[in-house]
C-alpha cells in the first residue's frame, strides 16, 4: 500500500543568499492499494517524476508524510532508505540503467549481491527470472550487446529479484519500439496478476496508461482531482 498525505515539494535554485524557491508538488494526497496498477500521467514539468522520486526516496518531501508497505518512510535516514528500497521496491527506468561493465546476469543479480545472498542461490534465482522474462540465453552478454527490449527485460528481472511488493517504473516503454512495448506491458500485467505486485507507472503513453486500473493526472504540481485546481482527467479503469 502506498499513501501520500498532503505531500509538497519545492526546489531551491540560484546562488546562496539569492535563492529562488520553485514549488513542484502541492499538497498531494494519494493512496494506491496493494496489487493495483496506477499510471501517473501529465505533461513535462507537471511533477510526475518528482512524485516518483519522492516515492523512491531519492528526494525528501518539503512537507507531508509518505507511507510505503505500511511504514512511514518520511523521516528515514539515507542508510535506512537504502535498506527499505532494497527489500520493498523494484525499479524500472526509461533508459534501463544497467551497469555497462557487467553482464546481463551480473546486472540482474545485483540486488541479491547487495542483500548478501550466497552464490549458488543467486545463480538459481537469476537464471529462473531471466528465463521468465525471456532473456536467459543472453545472460553472459553485456548491455551494449543487447537490444532495448532485451535490456529492459534484464532491468525487469533485476527489479523483481527480491520479490518486492511495489515496482516503481519511470517511462518504462520510453525507449522501446511498439513490439517490445507490447511485450513489456503484457509482462507487467502478468506479474501483477500472478504475483500481486503493485505497479506505479509514470508515463505519457496512452497504451501504458491503458493497462492501469487507475490513471492519475498531474498538472502544475497538483493532482487533477485536487479541489480548487484545474483538473485534466481522472479515469477509473475497471
Amino acid at each position: 500500500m502506498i499513501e501520500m498525505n498532503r505531500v509538497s515539494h519545492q526546489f531551491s535554485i540560484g546562488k546562496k543568499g539569492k535563492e529562488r524557491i520553485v514549488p513542484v508538488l502541492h499538497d498531494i494526497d494519494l493512496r494506491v492499494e496493494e496489487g493495483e496498477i496506477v499510471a501517473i500521467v501529465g505533461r513535462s514539468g507537471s511533477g510526475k517524476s518528482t512524485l516518483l522520486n519522492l516515492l523512491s526516496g531519492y528526494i525528501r518531501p518539503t512537507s507531508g508524510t509518505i507511507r510505503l508497505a505500511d511504514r512511514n518512510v518520511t523521516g528515514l535516514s539515507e542508510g535506512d532508505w537504502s535498506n527499505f528500497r532494497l527489500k520493498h521496491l523494484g525499479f524500472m527506468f526509461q533508459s534501463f540503467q544497467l551497469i555497462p561493465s557487467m553482464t546481463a546476469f551480473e546486472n540482474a543479480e545485483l540486488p541479491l549481491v547487495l542483500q548478501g545472498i550466497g552464490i549458488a542461490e543467486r545463480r538459481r534465482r537469476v537464471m529462473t527470472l531471466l528465463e521468465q522474462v525471456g532473456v536467459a540465453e543472453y545472460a553472459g552478454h553485456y548491455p551494449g550487446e543487447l537490444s532495448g527490449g532485451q535490456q529492459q527485460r534484464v532491468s525487469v528481472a533485476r527489479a523483481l529479484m527480491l520479490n518486492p511488493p511495489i515496482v516503481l517504473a519511470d517511462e518504462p516503454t520510453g525507449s522501446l519500439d511498439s513490439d517490445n512495448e507490447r511485450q513489456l506491458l503484457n509482462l507487467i500485467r502478468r506479474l501483477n496478476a500472478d504475483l500481486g505486485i503493485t505497479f506505479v507507472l509514470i508515463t505519457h503513453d496512452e497504451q501504458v496508461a491503458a493497462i492501469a486500473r487507475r490513471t492519475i493526472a498531474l498538472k502544475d504540481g497538483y493532482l487533477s482531482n485536487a479541489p480548487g485546481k484545474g483538473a485534466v482527467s481522472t479515469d477509473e479503469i475497471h
Partner: protein
Amino acid sequence: MKFTDQFRFVRQNMKKNKTRLFMTVLATAMGCSFLIVLASVGFGLQKSIVDNIVGDRMVTAIDVFGIESDSGIDQSIGLDQVAFLRSVDHVKAVTYRNPVRQPLDPTVDGVPAHSGGVLNVDFDAETKAGFGLSAGRLPQAGDEAIVGYHIRVPAEGLKPNEEPPAAEDWLGLTMNLNAAQIGKDGTKKTTAIPVKIVGIASKPTREWMTDSRVYIGNETMNEIERFTGTQWGEPRTLPSEENKEGYEPPGLQDTRHFNEIQVIANSADRVKGISEQIRKAGYYNHSIADELEQVNLVFLIMKIGLVFVGTIAVLIASIGIYNTMTMAVTERAQDIGIMKAIGAHPSAIRRIFLLESAMIGVLGAVIGTAVAYLISIAVNAGLPFIIESFMEEQVPADFRFSWIPPYLAVLAGTISLAVALLSGSRPAGRATRIDVLRALRRDM
C-alpha cells in the same frame, strides 16, 4: 554485501584501467621500498656496531667494588656475598681475580718468565663469562694454567715497533711456580709447583698495555696455600730489628675476601636490571650499560628519523592513490548511482572504494618489501667489495650495512596500508554522497 562480492567488484573495477593501476601501485611500491631501505641502514648499522659490542664481556660485566656499610664502602667481599651474587636472576657467572701474594718466580724449562704476577681465577666461571684467548684453550684440569700474551717479553722490554716473542710457543710446556715460605722457626722452605700452559690470554686492546700474568685455577691455588699455610700464599714476616712485631698473614681458616669481583649477565639487556637489584642489596657496582643505552638511544632516534623520512615518500605516493581513487569515483559515478538507486547502502559503497585503495596499498607494500629485500641483499654484498676495491679499507666479515628485521617490513606495510586507506577515504566518502538522480540523469 559479502566481503567476497566486494572483493570481486574491486577486482573488476581494477581491471578497467590497468595502466593507471600499475602506475599507482608502482609509486606506492617505490615509496614503501624507499622507507624500508632507508630505515634498514639504521637497523643494519645498529646491528653491526652495537650487537657486536653487546656480545662482548665488556658490556655484560658488572664490576662490584664493595658493600655499603656504616663506615662507607666495605671492600671485603666473602664467599657468602659471592654466593648471593651468583643467585641473582639472569647472572651467568661471577668471576674474581685474586693475586697470589708472592711472585712465585715462574720458570719454563729453567728459563725465568718475567711474569707480572700470578692470579687465581675460577676457570668454571671464566668459561661461562668468556675469557678472552688468543691461542689454546681454557684449563680443564686442576694443574693447567693460562699465561699472558706478553709472558715472553724480556725484562728489559721491547724495542719500538718490536713484536713480542710468540707466547704460543710455550703452549703445552710446563711452568714451575716456585713458592716460598718462612717457617715460624725462621727456616725458609721452597717448592716448585708445576702447571701446564694450555692457553694464551688475548692481547690487551690498548697498545701500551702488556699482560705477562699467569692465571691459575683453584686447585693450584689450594696447593700453594697448603704449602704456605696462609691465604693467597702470602709469606709471613718474622719479627726483626726493623719490624719488631713481624707479620702473620690470615690463615686458611680465617674469613676469606675476594678481589676484582665481576658479575656477568646473560645478555646486555639484563645488565641494568641486575645492576639495580644488587645495588638495592647494598653492592656498589658499575657497568657500561648506561653508556650503551645512550648509543642505543642515538640509534633509536636515527631509526625513527629514517622511518619518518621514508614515510614522506609513502605520503607522496598517496597523492597518486588519491588521484586514482578520485578518478575511479568520477568514472563510476553512474554505476554507483545505479547501485544506490536499487538499494546499495552508502557504507557498502564506501567499503568497496576503501577496499580498492587498501588493495593498492597492500600490493605496493608487498612489491616494495620484496624489492627492498633485494636491494638490502645487493647492498650488503656489493658495498664491502666497493669499499675494499676503491678505499682500501677492510670491512669486518659480519658487517651489515642494511638489515631488514621482520617488524620493519610489517611496519612499512602497515604505514603503506594506513596511508592508502587515508588517501582513499575522501574519494570513498565522495562516492557515498553521489546524487542518485544526477547519476541517472533523470529530470526532476
